[in-house]
C-alpha cells in the first residue's frame, strides 16, 4: 500500500530482468517500458511525497516522544527521543485509551449504519431511475446536487436545520437538542451523511443496472418468474460487483470521516468523535507522537478493512486492467 515499492517496480520494469533478446519485438518492448516509466514517474513521485513520505514519517513519529517537556530543573525543553511503543501504550490505555476506543466504536458504528442505509436508499433510487420513462434528466441533475455541495457546507446546512429553533424541530413539533451530544447527535450525522452520499451510490448502481441485458428479464418472464424473483435472481447478483465497488469506496470514506462531525457537532463531543478528529485534536495540542499513533492505528484499520473486503467479497477493482493485458498478450 505504500508508494515506495512502486518507483522500484516501475524502474525494475525498464532496467532489469529482461533477457537481451535482440529481436525487433523486444526492442520495441524495451522502448515501451521506458516510455511507461517516463509517463508514470511524475505521478508516482508525487504520490511518494504526499502519501509515502507521510506514512513512513507517521510511523516514525509514533515511536518518538515529541514536543515540549520539563527537564529535571523545571526548564521547558523541546525534546525528541525514541520511546518505542509507549505512545501506542499511551493511546490504548487510560484516559487516552478510553477516548480512542470510544472514537473507534463511533467510527465503526457510523461506517456500518451509514453505508447500510445508503446502499438501501441508493439501490431504491437506482431502480426508480432505471424504470423511469420520463424525467431522467431532472433526476440526474437533482441527484448530483448533494454530491456537489461541499461536505463542510452540508455540515453547516444540517447544523442550521437541526438547530434548536430550526426547521427539523418545527416540522417534528419537538424540542430535540440535536447538535448537543448523545444519540440525537449521532442520528444527525447519519442523516446528513446519508443525504449527501446515497444519491451517489444510486448513480453508480444505475450505471450497473443499465449493463444488465434486457433479454435476461424476458427469458425469466417466459419461465414465469415473478418480479421479486427477477430482482433477487437477476438484478441483485448482476449489479453486485458494481455495488461492492461503491460500498468499498464509501466504507473507506466513512472510516476517515472528519468534516461532518467536526462542523455539525464539534470536535470535543464524545458521541461523534471519530479517530480522525481525535488525531487532529492531539496534533492541534502539539502532541505529535500521540497524534501519529492515532493516525497510524486508523491507517492500519483502513488497510485491514480494505484487505478483508477484497479477500472475502472478491471485489475486483482492477479487473479491466487484467483483461486489457490479456488482450495485449494474446
Amino acid at each position, binding site marked *: 500500500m505504500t*508508494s515506495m515499492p512502486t518507483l522500484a517496480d516501475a524502474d525494475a520494469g525498464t532496467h532489469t530482468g529482461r533477457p537481451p533478446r535482440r529481436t525487433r519485438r523486444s526492442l520495441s518492448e524495451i522502448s515501451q517500458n521506458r516510455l511507461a516509466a517516463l509517463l508514470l514517474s511524475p505521478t508516482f513521485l508525487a504520490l511518494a511525497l504526499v502519501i509515502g513520505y507521510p506514512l513512513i514519517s507517521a510511523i516514525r513519529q509514533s515511536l518518538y516522544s515529541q514536543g515540549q517537556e520539563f527537564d529535571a530543573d523545571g526548564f521547558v525543553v523541546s525534546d525528541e527521543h525514541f520511546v518505542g511503543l509507549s505512545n501506542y501504550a499511551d493511546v490504548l490505555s487510560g484516559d487516552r485509551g478510553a477516548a480512542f476506543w470510544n472514537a473507534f466504536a463511533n467510527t465503526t458504528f457510523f461506517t456500518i449504519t451509514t453505508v447500510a442505509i445508503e446502499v438501501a436508499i441508493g439501490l431504491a433510487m437506482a431502480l426508480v431511475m432505471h424504470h423511469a420513462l420520463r424525467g431522467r434528466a431532472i433526476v*440526474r441533475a437533482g441527484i448530483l446536487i448533494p454530491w456537489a455541495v*461541499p461536505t*463542510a457546507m452540508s455540515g453547516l446546512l444540517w447544523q442550521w436545520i437541526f438547530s434548536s429553533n430550526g426547521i427539523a424541530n418545527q416540522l417534528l413539533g419537538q424540542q430535540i437538542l440535536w447538535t448537543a451530544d448523545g444519540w440525537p447527535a449521532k442520528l444527525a450525522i447519519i442523516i446528513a451523511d446519508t443525504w449527501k452520499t446515497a444519491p451517489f451510490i444510486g448513480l453508480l448502481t444505475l450505471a450497473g443496472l443499465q449493463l444488465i441485458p434486457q433479454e435476461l428479464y424476458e427469458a425469466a418472464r417466459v419461465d414465469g418468474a415473478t418480479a421479486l424473483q427477477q430482482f433477487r435472481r437477476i438484478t441483485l447478483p448482476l449489479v453486485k460487483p458494481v455495488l461492492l*465497488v461503491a460500498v468499498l469506496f464509501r466504507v473507506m470514506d466513512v472510516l476517515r470521516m472528519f468534516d461532518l462531525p467536526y462542523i455539525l457537532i464539534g470536535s470535543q463531543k464524545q458521541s461523534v468523535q471519530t479517530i480522525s478528529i481525535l488525531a487532529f485534536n492531539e496534533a492541534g495540542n502539539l502532541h505529535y507522537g500521540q497524534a*501519529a499513533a492515532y493516525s497510524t492505528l*486508523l491507517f492500519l484499520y483502513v488497510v485491514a478493512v480494505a484487505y478483508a473486503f477484497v479477500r472475502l467479497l472478491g471485489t475486483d477493482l*482492477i479487473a479491466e486492467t487484467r483483461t486489457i493485458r490479456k488482450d495485449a498478450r494474446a
Partner: protein
Amino acid sequence: MTASTLPATGRPRGTRSRVRAAAQYLGIAVIVVYCLAPFFWMVVSAFRRPTDQFQTTPLPDPWSIANLQAVFEPSVGFQRALLNSILVAGTTTAVTLLIGTATAYALARLDFPFKRTAAAIVIATSMFPGISMVVPLLKLFTDIGWINTYQAMIAPSMSFALPLAVWNLTAYLRQLPPELEQAAMIDGCTRMQAFRRIILPLAAPGVFTTAIITFIAAWNEFIIALSMVNKKDMQTATVAISRFTGAHGFDTPYGTQMAAAVVVTIPLVIAVLIFQRRIVSGLTAGGVK
C-alpha cells in the same frame, strides 16, 4: 422497459400502466425532493432578512440580500478566501491533469511489467485517510516554514486529486479505439507524437470532465486547508465560512453562513447542471466499465 420487468396479470392493461406511470412519477418526485429539499432550505435561508432568520415560510417574506451583503463586507475578508480557494483548487487541478494524463495514458495503452501493481497502488492511495497525511506533514511544514502558504495546501491535495484524475482518465482513454494511434504510428508518427496529435484531441472531453470532477473535489477540501493555515488571509472559503462568528456574541450567524455557503456552492451546481451527462459518465467510469 418498465413493462417487461413486471409480470403480466389478468387486470386490464390500461389501469395497470396508469398505476405504474403514477408510481414512477411518485418515485421520481420523492428522489428529487430528497435531494433538493435541504439545498432549497439553504438558499431560502440565505435570502431572508437577518431579523427573519427563524421564519419557516417556504419562501422568504420579504426577500432580502442583507445576508449576502454581510458576507461580502470588507471586514469579513470573504473575497480573499474565495480567491484563495480558486488559486488552490485551480493549481491542484492543473498540476494533477498535467501529470495524471501521462500516467493514465500509460495505464490505458501501454503494456509493461508491474502494470497491475501500478494500477492497484493508484487505487490504494485513494483510500489513504487524510489525517494520516496531515499529522506528519503538519510537523514537516512547520519545520520548513510552509505553514500559511499555498503550496502547503496544494501539495497534500495531490494525494486525493491524483488517484481520482488518473482513474477517471484511464477509464476514458480505454474507450478510444487503439487503431487510431496504430494508424498514425504506421504513418511514421512516434508514440509520443501519436499521443499528442491523435489521442489528446480525442481525449479532450474526458480531460475536461476529469478537470471538473477534480476541481470540485479540491474546492470542497477541508481538513488540509484547516490544518495547514492559521492566518485569516490564507484561509480557503470552506474554512473561512466554518469560522464565521456572529455580530451578537455566541449566536451562530446561520443566515450569513447560509449566504456564504450558497456563494461557494452555486458555481458547482451550475457546472453540474451544464455538464451533468459528462460528470455522470466520468463518475461511473471507474466503478463500472
